């Protein structure tokens, strides 16, 4: 048994980020849309542990992720909450739907995809004609079908806000952003976050994408934007500056509303794939680093929040620059990617950043192995990552529908076992 003084959840998370050894391993499940659980896996989990009364609320409709109930979070000693969950808190904010496995679930009541004869779902723009996204049969995700600048960059960015609003990631955004257009939204966000802060000792997180590379891919389509990085950097920079203006305006509002209440702000930008980063470090340095730095600097000057970035894949070659730009926390730590081995990462970057993820492989272990194998990997990962803080437990990316509930329970049990050593 450890004789360390026991900490509140919030103290535990902050200790880890500040590289002090927390009393036990801080844990996340569902505080971000890349550290969460798909609706199907969540439905299986609540049934497995006998909490069948809990509704499966799909708060991120694009990725089909469930908002884990507070009962579940407490049961698994989760230490952090997304402030987005303070919205859509009434049963009347939700409408029933059926998951691909036949189980009941709920969508936020504003989300009304159209079911097609072949069983797929699609969404349309207000004109009822332009298809914006599509979820094929067998998929657990909506896919963007509308790319406004696919044929080239516009002369003027007057229409950028409108076009961004047509991209599924913005149009069908998860809470709190699904309420962003409403009167008094920012006051509401503050009031609700204040109330949450009073009722929980967990750390609080706000998801505020500020994506740069990814917005380029949403607007131009991925293949085009990747080539633009090389053959049209002037237009890339022009677009990034327009995005930066908008992101800074949002950050100003976020910092004013909750910058003194929330502990972590989560940005997103997928810079890696399994075999390597999407771009070399020079390209990152030239186009993205200066702008990431402006975003991080703003947060640091105007709030108490710690900076967090979600990026899939192999990014260790970009991490020194991301850290220099001001990123403090990385997620999901895709440990099966190139040069992303846990020991290597901890040794190379452990003192300079916090790993939020990498706790177990969702592809290859959590989804297919036995509970005992799950336990072994979790214990091994905790051994590697947890020394001296700088680690918050989370799976490598979202728990997908193929993960059996027994393994999720085994995973949390193993954390408990490690804490009690």
């Amino acid at each position, binding site marked *: 048994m450890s004789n360390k003084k026991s900490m509140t959840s919030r103290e535990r998370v902050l200790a880890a980020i500040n590289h002090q050894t927390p009393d036990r391993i801080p844990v996340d499940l569902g505080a971000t849309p890349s550290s969460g659980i798909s609706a199907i896996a969540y439905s299986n989990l609540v049934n497995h542990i006998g909490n069948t009364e809990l509704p499966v609320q799909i708060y991120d409709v694009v990725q089909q992720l469930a908002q884990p109930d507070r009962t579940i979070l407490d049961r698994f000693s989760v230490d952090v909450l997304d402030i987005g969950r303070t919205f859509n808190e009434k049963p009347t904010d939700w409408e029933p739907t059926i998951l691909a496995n036949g189980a009941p679930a709920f969508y936020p009541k504003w989300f009304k995809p159209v079911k097609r004869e072949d069983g797929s779902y699609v969404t349309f723009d207000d004109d009822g004609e332009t298809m914006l996204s599509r979820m094929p049969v067998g998929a657990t995700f909506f896919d963007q079908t509308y790319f406004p600048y696919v044929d080239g960059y516009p002369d003027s960015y007057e229409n950028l806000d409108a076009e961004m609003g047509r991209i599924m990631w913005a149009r069908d955004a998860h809470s709190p952003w699904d309420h962003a257009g409403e009167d008094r939204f920012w006051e509401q966000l503050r009031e609700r976050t204040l109330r949450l802060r009073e009722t929980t000792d967990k750390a609080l997180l706000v998801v505020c994408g500020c994506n740069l590379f990814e917005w380029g891919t949403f607007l131009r389509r991925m*293949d085009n934007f990747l*080539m633009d*990085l*090389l053959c049209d950097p002037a237009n890339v920079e022009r677009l990034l500056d327009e995005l930066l203006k908008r992101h800074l305006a949002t950050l100003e509002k976020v910092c004013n509303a909750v910058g003194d209440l929330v502990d972590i702000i989560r940005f997103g930008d997928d810079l890696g794939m399994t075999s390597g*980063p999407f771009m070399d470090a020079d390209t990152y340095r030239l186009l993205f680093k200066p702008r990431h730095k402006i975003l991080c600097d703003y947060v640091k000057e105007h709030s108490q929040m710690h900076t967090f970035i979600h990026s899939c894949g192999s990014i260790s070659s970009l991490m020194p620059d991301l850290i220099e730009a001001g990123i403090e926390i990385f997620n999901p730590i895709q440990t099966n990617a190139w040069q992303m081995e846990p020991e290597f990462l901890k040794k190379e970057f452990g003192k300079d950043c916090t790993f939020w993820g990498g706790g177990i492989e969702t592809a290859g272990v959590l*989804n297919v192995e036995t509970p005992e194998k799950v336990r072994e990997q979790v214990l091994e990962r905790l051994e590697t990552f947890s020394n001296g803080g700088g680690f918050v437990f989370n799976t490598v990316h979202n728990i*997908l529908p*193929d993960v059996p509930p027994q393994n999720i329970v085994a995973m949390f049990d193993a954390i408990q076992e490690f804490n009690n050593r």
Partner: protein
Amino acid sequence: MKDELLKKLSACVEFGKTNKAALYPPQMKGEDGADEITSQLLDVGVGAQEILTEGLMPGMEKVGIKFRENKIFVPQVLMSAKAMGMSMVHLKPFFTSGAAKQKGTFIIGTVQGDLHDIGKNLVAMMVEGSGYKVIDLGTDCLAEKYIAAIKENPGAAVGLSALLTTTMVNMEQITKDIKAVFPETLVTIGGAPVNDDFCLKIGADNYSADPQGVVDFLNTKIA
């Protein structure tokens, strides 16, 4: 003259130089690109076949190797593919008419339920750049789609791509369905969550971690 031009074409593919007007890559600014050089080659009487095997393929092979070794990244590969595409526009008529021959046909698609296509596209480009006719079925492909394509292209090999653990399982059924109709058809699989064990388990013929691997496989099996 001819050898000089073929070498230049190869460099255009290797470094992603599409045409004269292209500003990329900076070190080749103002020079002729794949577009112009292919025209020049055809003008001096070099055949489409030779342009493909002596110009495009050596360039693409270098790209494949550098990408595998993480010396270049996806943006560079896409530029190379674009340069190759510029050249292929001139060559396609010769392949269609039968005046020149590709090594064989490769059908590729991302499997049902999966929408990731960057990797699949890269494989398609590299295989094309290695001298094959490529039929790209897109994403979210059911078994029927592959089977229909094989019917139209007897003797073609098939590539299945999946990036998700939840969709790689569809590869098994698709492979079975294909083999039930065309037992001789070679099925090769790829994508981040897939590996050799899985390939063996589902009865596919080959797994490759990268595009160069599938090119090697095709060269030994169907070329």
